[in-house]
């Protein structure tokens, strides 16, 4: 390392560091501070210490709402996992070249506006939508099902949008699985289900947790999904936060809610690291550990 002043080095480090400090670190601290301030109708917040924001979280109506949101996200994660895991297992059976093509096909829609795709699901789930029409045509039902504007619709939409986020980490941890281990297990007399339970699952656990992390948290925030598919009845945490900031203007409460989400994130990250430690391998959150 040369001690002389190096302009390129200065800018390369300085630009990103100051950007991250100014627009990630400082705002995050401000959220934390805001959650302990007093709400003010005219000026949004008063610089006075208060625990009101945090107290609102323990309001029973809110608790049930939080629980609703959390359970919808978790069910979403479970559905995604139920589709993604077998999907990746099937994918691994394909030749390398085809895997890439299938993954590519899977990712194309994920690069498209998620709002637009949620809007498209309205067509799918509506009274005269594709699903109802098909079911009626086949004769399974006489009357169209009321699917839109329900918890089901919200979960359907969330799992639709977030499926790739479950598939990719699982795929990346599955790809790192040494398939000789499975041969070894077979050689030692393990049946197909034993191999799955004792080898494949434990070794891809970090991928599963990474996938859950990348599904559950965003799922809680996607207010537009609840808006478009859940009507006004089935709100997500994101809707509540948005309301607190845009309509009700209770910033301390909204800030406290965000901190809650960060805590949840930290908890899941902790789980992830436990899992990686246990199986001694990466799960694909940070494919590029610094």
């Amino acid at each position: 390392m040369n001690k002389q002043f190096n302009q390129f080095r200065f800018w390369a480090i300085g630009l990103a560091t100051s950007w991250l400090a100014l627009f990630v670190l400082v705002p995050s601290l401000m959220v934390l501070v805001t959650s302990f301030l007093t709400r003010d109708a005219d000026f949004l917040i008063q610089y006075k210490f208060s625990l009101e924001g945090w107290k609102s979280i323990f309001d029973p109506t809110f608790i049930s709402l939080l629980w609703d949101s959390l359970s919808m996200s978790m069910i979403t994660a479970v559905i995604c996992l139920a589709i993604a895991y077998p999907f990746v297992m099937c994918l691994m059976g394909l030749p390398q070249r085809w895997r890439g093509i299938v993954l590519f096909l899977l990712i194309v829609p994920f690069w498209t506006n998620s709002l637009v795709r949620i809007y498209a699901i309205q067509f799918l789930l509506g009274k005269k939508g594709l699903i109802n029409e098909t079911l009626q045509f086949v004769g399974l039902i006489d009357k169209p099902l009321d699917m839109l504007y329900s918890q089901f619709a919200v979960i359907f939409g969330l799992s639709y949008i977030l499926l790739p986020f479950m598939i990719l980490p699982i795929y990346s941890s599955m790809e790192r699985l040494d398939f000789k281990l499975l041969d070894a297990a077979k050689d030692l007399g393990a049946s197909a289900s034993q191999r799955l339970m004792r080898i494949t699952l434990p070794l891809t656990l970090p991928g599963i947790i990474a996938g859950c992390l990348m599904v559950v948290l965003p799922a809680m925030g996607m207010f537009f999904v609840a808006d478009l598919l859940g009507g006004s009845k089935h709100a997500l945490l994101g809707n509540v936060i948005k309301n607190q900031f845009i309509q009700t203007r209770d910033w301390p409460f909204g800030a406290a809610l965000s901190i809650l989400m960060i805590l949840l994130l930290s908890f899941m990250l902790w789980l992830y690291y436990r899992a990686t430690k246990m199986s001694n391998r990466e799960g694909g959150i940070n494919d590029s550990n610094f």
Partner: protein
Amino acid sequence: MTGCQPLLQLSGVSKTYADNTVLDALDLTIYDGEFLTLLGPSGCGKTTVLRIIAGFEKEDQGQVMLDEKDISILKAEHRPVNTVFQSYALFPHMTVYDNIAFGLIMHKVPKADINERVLEALRMVRLESFAQRKPHQLSGGQQQRVAIARAVVNRPRLLLLDESLSALDYKLRQEMQIELKRLQRQLNITFVYVTHDQEEALSMSDRIVVLNKGKVQQIGTPREIYETPVNLFVARFIGEINQFDGHVVRRIDDKHVEVVAEGADWVVKTDYPFAANDKVHVLLRPEDVRLTKPELAANTVHIEGHIHECNYKGKTLDSYIRLSTGTKVIASEFFDEDDPDFDYRLGQKVALQWITGWEVVLPYEQTI
């Protein structure tokens, strides 16, 4: 070939990473025009020396002088020193021509000169027809030659080669060794070559610096290093050697002492001021050992042992002999096709003889 003008001087250079001392107050003088090899096991600090000379690492202590000027403060890009990297480090997105021209462009050499010098460098490494290829279209040996051309085209005072041949296969490596020697003579540039391969070091260098644990063990010509190692490390690292532990019986004259080892009396030549009862190591190269039938050696100094294993090596026959004391000895003899008795049976009793004066005697070292 070896000018007497010192070109580069390292004095008291130390380097520590975390708690690991890589270089320990190293002193080294490199003379103008010589082919110097830094030889040592991995982790001995040889690559660090190279990187400090090149300017990629900064020494913690000490001084680096080039032409009697301190270059410690100079950045790598300003030093009149170029490196041939172990992995070649050719720029993958540039053609061979652009790779070689890179240093000249960086130093703002006039365009016309650049073309001429690049072509000359290409001719020198015999790659004229490959100028427009990309590195990945070349074989390992060709890439190696581009890397050398890219470095020497800048006419550095010092060319540093970091294990530059280690990625090549055996035959190609032999060819490149000869090629490197030819280039060095032709260019008259000082080469500093780093390797852990003692054979390579012996065959190419004017002088060899043997390093271990960040310290210079011995500096000398290949012959000096091989024939008169100054300590057990050097003796064992360069080639194979048989080691006998013994003690001095008496001093014969100022050049010779009498030593008892393995039950035999040895009269050995030494410069060390040994006195009676000093513990010593007597070292003998396998090729200096002769095996005969015990009855033929009865009247000369010899040691007896049993053949333990025989390895036919093509040029030589290597015999592993176990002495009665348990010491194992290797004897490497040129294969004589006309001698019907030349082969040994396993377990056969043999007498070991050696040419007096070819032994090396070293003071006893505590380490094994």
